[in-house]
């Protein structure tokens, strides 16, 4: 089992997670490495002490909940879960294979830290809203974190949840938008321009913060400066394919897995 090295810099872990993801994707010829790379720092930050959840508390009603609404980027989630002991490296070897453990979109697996099956965009925030509402009904103090993609904001159901959460002041709900600026067929600005994203959320009654989604300090700081009056959203300004020069902001890596040469090149960049 992989275990987080004590006092390790989160940046070092992020780099290792990218190498793990690269290997998983290369071995299985799976898609979506670009979307996985853009949310690595967010995942590492959340699991590294922000969220109150551990392999020992997966069954506790008071645990924080994490929902990977952008389910297609799950290779990054699996790699991070293994870093924190929710699953084993053997589980990672059983990614995207017949009779495996992990699919190319996450399936509910509480013991391995996966709260809910996702993969169809526009579901996660509503489910998270329901979880946050349940906590509020019961007077429990835990929080619900939902990671969405920016393309996902095209889905109308996201805004249904946004309106509900704001109306009911679900301050225990924290949305994170991986704003890597790309969706399945191109740049978001060319397909459905989302800007100004923060102002949209603000107009809907949320407390938005915009940060560099690859800067763990900025992400951490935003998560320590949450509003106690409104639901919170962190807009993570990120780069799709971040960490490997030839994958960055390149739509090809929403679909392709690296060949042997590309794998070696990418691994070299991620090992520096």
């Amino acid at each position, binding site marked *: 089992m992989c275990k987080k090295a004590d006092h390790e810099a989160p940046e070092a872990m992020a780099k290792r997670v990218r190498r793990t993801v690269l290997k998983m994707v290369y071995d299985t010829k799976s898609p979506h490495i670009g979307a996985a790379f853009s949310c690595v720092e967010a995942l590492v930050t959340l699991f590294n002490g922000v969220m109150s959840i551990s392999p020992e508390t997966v069954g506790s*009603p008071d645990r924080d909940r994490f929902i990977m609404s952008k389910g297609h980027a799950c290779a990054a989630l699996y790699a991070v879960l293994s870093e924190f002991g929710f699953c084993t490296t053997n589980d990672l070897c059983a990614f995207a294979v017949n009779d495996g453990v992990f699919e190319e979109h996450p399936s*509910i697996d509480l013991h391995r830290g996966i*709260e*809910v*099956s996702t993969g*169809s965009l*526009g*579901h996660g*925030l*509503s*489910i*998270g*809203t*329901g*979880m*946050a*509402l*349940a*906590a*509020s*009904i*019961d007077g429990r103090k835990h929080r*619900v974190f939902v990671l969405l993609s920016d393309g996902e904001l095209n889905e*109308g*159901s996201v805004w*249904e*949840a946004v*309106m*509900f959460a704001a109306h*009911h002041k679900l301050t225990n709900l924290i949305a994170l938008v991986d704003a890597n600026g790309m969706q399945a067929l191109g740049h978001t600005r060319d397909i459905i321009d989302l800007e100004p994203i923060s102002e949209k959320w603000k107009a809907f009654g949320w407390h938005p913060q915009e940060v560099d989604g690859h800067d763990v300090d900025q992400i951490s700081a935003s998560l320590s400066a949450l509003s106690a009056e409104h639901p919170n959203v962190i807009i993570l300004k990120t780069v799709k394919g971040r960490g490997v020069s030839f994958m960055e902001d390149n739509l090809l890596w929403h679909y392709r897995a690296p060949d042997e040469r590309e794998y070696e090149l990418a691994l070299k960049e991620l090992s520096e």
Partner: protein
Amino acid sequence: MRTAFFKRLESIYADNGDVVVLTGDLGYKLFDRFRALDPKRFYDVGVAESNMIGIASGLALSGKKPYCYSIIPFLVMRPFEQIRIDVAYHDLDVRLVGAGGGFAYGLEGITHHGLEDIALMRTLPNMTIVAPADRYEAERFAELSADHRGPMYIRLGHTNEPTVHDSVPEIEIGKISVLRKGEDVALLSYGRTVSTALQAMDLLSDEGISPTLANVHTIKPLDVEAMAELFKTNNLILVVEEHQYEGGLGSAIAELAAEMDYTGKVRRLGIDRTKAYVGRAEYQRERHGLTPELVAEKVKKEMI
């Protein structure tokens, strides 16, 4: 039957702190008591059915027992994918309570008719489908739904359905109730058309024909054992339903009949979607042949 269902649910809501009631901004005056009893467990989510189902799923994943209410097409068709993934695949304790089965919303038009709901819900794993025949059964299903494990679709009519019972019956989910035991012919129905079939039985008995009438209030899972018995003892099975032909109970029975090598006839009376009329619910039913007279006629014709 809608009022009867929610009246019974009110007391369950009062007793069981895990029950949460959600509505997609429909049900005028239906929920006043819920709000008064405990405003923290009743939510009008607004005109946002997809979000309602997602929220219900999040609630259920947190140990709650959510009930979602709307008019059938808005409850099960608009958010079908949320029901498919969030509710059915996760096998959650979410209750979908739909008003307006068949033509109950008559003149409000096709947007409000519930004619494909059984077909859609039948395709989903883990989904239990029930349809009470009258207000007493509605009350019974409100009771049963509270302890049921897994997702459940409850297809209600609306108001003033003719009663089949005179008190709350002891029916069970998944068990066909035989309302009349006859011979040679079996009528199968659920929901409002059970009373139509009952009246048809009276017409037929005047002519010396006495079929069995089975109330298939649980459309999924089908009571396979009871069906095997009905196949054994009847030469004609007629399914009567206020639902389109494709995918309804009639389809389910035909599938079962084929698998069980039933050698008698399976016939269906449902809604032919190549025809559409403007009119009140009663008029629609009449035009589509769902009257006691036409049901009786169909039986006689098929018996030959």
